[in-house]
């Protein structure tokens, strides 16, 4: 099929439509607004509903209702708006409702700025809202993946009855690239738990209240049995030149493409450097990183934040090699800057 030139946010929106999503509840925020604007035009064409909610709180709770009704439902936002959604996300995770949440990230804290950032890694991967729970988190690196991961996210959400977050730098939402438009998804998951009227069956209840001591603990254990299954099956990462790598760079998202170029340049200078690009940020692909320990003498986590994913890299490496950090805020570093960071780390590690 011929490729179409699309903006990242639009590819994400169209990906949702292709995945069978017919309901989007959102609220405007830069740099996410084109997801909402695209679906405001697109969803009525496929007999879907776009609704601009009065707030991020309302939007995520509309998602809660729509997901409980059994539909494929989505919302999107960016940093400050995702913070507001956390109450609802905690409820949705506990109620085991499938849905997709896009975080077209900007820099923080506070109002921060609309520059590209990966500063919401902790929020996305370490909980975000109250209580013990996880989201599945996908980090696309291209406009094509903005579309493809929408399909993947809805599938994972239904398969595991869990909210899935697509987290991209704001810049990926804003940039344009050629996209191969995918075929519509026809597979449907049975949702016998949906609250859609109890004709011919006992009433269904969607609830997150567990007053009994044993009941609450068992509920948490149930969720974590599911998370263990997700961790066993769904870790995804892309690796490049890691087979003989002495220095392994870990980077995700759009940034990982810049790092690829820098890795190739550093190789030309004789540095045995490779890349692990986590595709799922949760579950974190720790095994892909551990496999590098056969040859790796050190690791370098490169992020557009002050150092968040580096904690997961350190946990994966578990003290068997030093883990260095290079980070920027609100800036996608150039290949040249990343290459310099790689050379500096290599020098520090005695690998030059």
């Amino acid at each position, binding site marked *: 099929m011929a490729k179409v030139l699309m903006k990242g946010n639009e590819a994400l929106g169209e990906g949702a439509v292709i995945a069978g999503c017919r309901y989007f509840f959102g609220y405007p925020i830069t740099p996410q607004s084109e997801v909402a604007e695209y679906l405001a035009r697109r969803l009525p064409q496929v007999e879907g509903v776009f609704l601009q909610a*009065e707030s991020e*709180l*309302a939007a995520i*709770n509309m998602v809660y*209702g729509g997901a409980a*009704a059994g539909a494929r439902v989505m919302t999107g936002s960016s940093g400050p708006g995702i913070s507001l959604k956390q109450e*609802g996300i905690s*409820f949705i995770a506990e109620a085991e409702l499938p849905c997709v949440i896009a975080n077209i990230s900007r820099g923080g804290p506070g109002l921060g700025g609309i520059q590209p950032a990966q500063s919401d890694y902790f929020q996305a991967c370490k909980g975000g809202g109250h209580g013990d729970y996880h989201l599945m988190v996908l980090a696309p690196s291209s406009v094509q993946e903005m579309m493809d991961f929408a399909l993947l996210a809805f599938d994972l959400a239904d398969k595991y009855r869990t909210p899935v977050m697509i987290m991209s730098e704001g810049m990926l939402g804003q940039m344009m690239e050629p996209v191969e438009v995918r075929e519509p998804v026809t597979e449907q998951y049975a949702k016998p738990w949906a609250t*859609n*009227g109890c004709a011919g069956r006992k009433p269904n209840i969607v609830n997150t209240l567990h007053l009994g001591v044993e009941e609450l603990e068992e509920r948490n254990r149930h969720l974590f049995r599911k998370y263990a299954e997700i961790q066993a099956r769904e870790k995804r990462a892309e690796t490049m030149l890691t087979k003989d790598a002495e220095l392994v760079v870990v980077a995700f998202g759009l940034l990982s493409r810049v790092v690829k170029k820098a890795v190739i340049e550093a190789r030309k200078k004789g540095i045995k450097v490779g890349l692990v690009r986590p595709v799922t940020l949760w579950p974190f692909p720790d095994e892909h990183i551990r496999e590098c320990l056969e040859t790796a003498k050190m690791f370098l986590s490169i992020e557009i934040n002050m150092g968040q994913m580096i904690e997961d890299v350190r946990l994966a490496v578990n003290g068997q090699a030093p883990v260095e950090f290079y980070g920027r805020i609100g800036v996608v570093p150039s290949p040249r800057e990343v290459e310099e960071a790689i050379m500096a780390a290599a020098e520090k590690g005695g690998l030059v």
Partner: protein
Amino acid sequence: MKKVFVKPVSLTGKQWHYCPGCGHGIIHRLVAECMDELDIREKTIGICPVGCGVLAYEYFNCDMLEAAHGRAPAVGTGLKRVLKDRIIFTYQGDGDLASIGMAEIVHAASRGEKISVFFINNTVYGMTGGQMAPTTLLGQVTTTSPYGRDKDREGYPIRIAEMLAPFEGTAYVSRVAINTPANVARAKKAVKKAFETQMQGLGFSLVEILSTCPTNWGMGPVEAMKWLESNMIPYYPLGDLKVKEG
């Protein structure tokens, strides 16, 4: 023998957790009786609040959701937009609806969401132990207005029905009470009318139901009913405020 009184099919029959004399039991029953009479139980989805009504999913014998505090109208919006031919109701207290959930109720009403809201106003936060609500009357003593609600300190009580009735999106808004048998009968009519308004697709419907909280008011059930009559009804007058006909 002719049956003149039965338990509604739309109630599970589980024993209430509510305090003796609490109005929730009466109101649950009215909602359930209307669901039975309109034969809508199997296509109705109810949404519980956070507050004393949080466990309503154990009592209503239909599909039920429990929402975050104040968010029931947003949850109801999500449900109704997907399930256009189903009947959606929220059951919310005064803290849930008129305080933390004010934005959600205002915008659901403004959009004319085709859902029915049963708003239980007993002037206090019940489940958390009798704190001041937006609907607490001037002079009323609660655990967080221990010197009595003062207009200069805590501001004025909010009249939700009067606030929402003028909205273009609202099709039926009424205020009723459950302090006497005659008022209970009127309350049931209003609940039914709210469901019918939704079934006819006319728009948003809300019934504000004045109720009692003997435990947190520090009164017996009978005294509480009298207090409702002499203190609440003068500030929150009863009757239909908006009736859009099909």
